[in-house]
């Protein structure tokens, strides 16, 4: 690594990776990870000028008025993490979004519910409403995914899929 002096080591021991469980979110510059996304969505927002970001593990598109677990539903999760990032000084126009997940794990079983697809559509709509650019996504299909998000490495968003393939958004 040539630019090691100017960058915080993303894997330094005192920066433990935060595991983001279903319906949870975190905001900061530490490494974050969410595992085993099926129909759920792993969404990150990242501000490159401030090197901070947020990650949320969304399970369902609509909260239907529930507010006790904002990270669980797309319609409460997106405004919540935006608000927290705004509070840290991030402007919406400098935030970049990436997402993964939204798969349909079973071919003919609850597939009519299409939760994964509905989650992805809802997130896209909400990001647009808040004027946040969705830079890249890896959604749909029928494959589970795990995501690692490194705010200190320019918001690096790495995906490991259940079939063993990897990708970077």
């Amino acid at each position, binding site marked *: 690594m040539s630019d090691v002096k100017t960058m915080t080591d993303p894997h330094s021991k005192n920066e433990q990776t935060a595991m983001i469980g279903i319906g949870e979110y975190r905001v900061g510059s530490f490494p974050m990870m969410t595992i*085993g996304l*099926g129909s759920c969505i792993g969404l990150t927002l990242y501000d490159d000028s401030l090197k901070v970001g947020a990650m949320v593990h969304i399970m369902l598109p609509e909260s239907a008025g529930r507010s006790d677990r904002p990270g669980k539903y797309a319609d409460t999760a997106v405004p919540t993490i935006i608000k927290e990032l705004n509070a840290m000084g991030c402007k919406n126009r400098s935030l970049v979004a990436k997402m993964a997940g939204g798969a349909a794990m079973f071919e003919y079983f609850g597939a009519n519910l299409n*939760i994964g697809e509905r989650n992805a559509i809802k997130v896209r709509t909400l990001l647009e409403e808040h004027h946040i650019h969705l830079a890249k996504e890896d959604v749909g299909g029928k494959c589970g*995914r795990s995501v690692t998000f490194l705010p200190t490495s320019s918001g690096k968003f790495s995906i490991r899929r259940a079939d063993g393939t990897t990708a970077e958004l």
Partner: protein
Amino acid sequence: MKLTSVQSDAIQELGNIGAAHAATTLSQMLGSTVEMSVPAIKAIDISELGEYMGDEPAAMVAFELQGEIPHGGYIIFYISRESAIRLTNTMLGLTDMNRTMNEMDESALLEVGNIMVSAFLDATAELLGFIMLPSPPALSLDMAHATMSSLIAQMSEEVDEVLLFSTELVCEEHKIDSDIIMLPESSTLARIVELMENMMKGI
């Protein structure tokens, strides 16, 4: 729903009986002894599901619980990918552990899941006089957490906490380790608890 220790014991007993029948069928299919654990009942917050099921590859055969309660939740035959290969190898007379799974493996797993879950639900129906029928099976060969969380997402009731009710079935000879997991909707759980309580009171 919060369970008292008596209710939790009752469900454990139900799991014991169901799993014993499932273990017998597995043992017959493998021609080998199958041991079962004491059923474990854990109430898990959905945010902590990852601590119980990670992104390790697993085969899961899932069934919707139907019958008296139309969408009663799910029952799942869970087996790690390694154990799944050992299981289908034993059934198909193969030895190669490093092969990729094919259609033969998939239909074998669906069949094993179907037979075991049917045995489990037959036994519980006989005991409770409450009929839960399995839907046709659906197989997922994927990260355990991805499959499980997708099932939880499509449950009809809002779920913040799941009651994982699982029994481990182990075949020492072939090093096969599997689990039967029940993910009841709260209506199903309430009905099961009520019937178990009545039974213990001798009604």
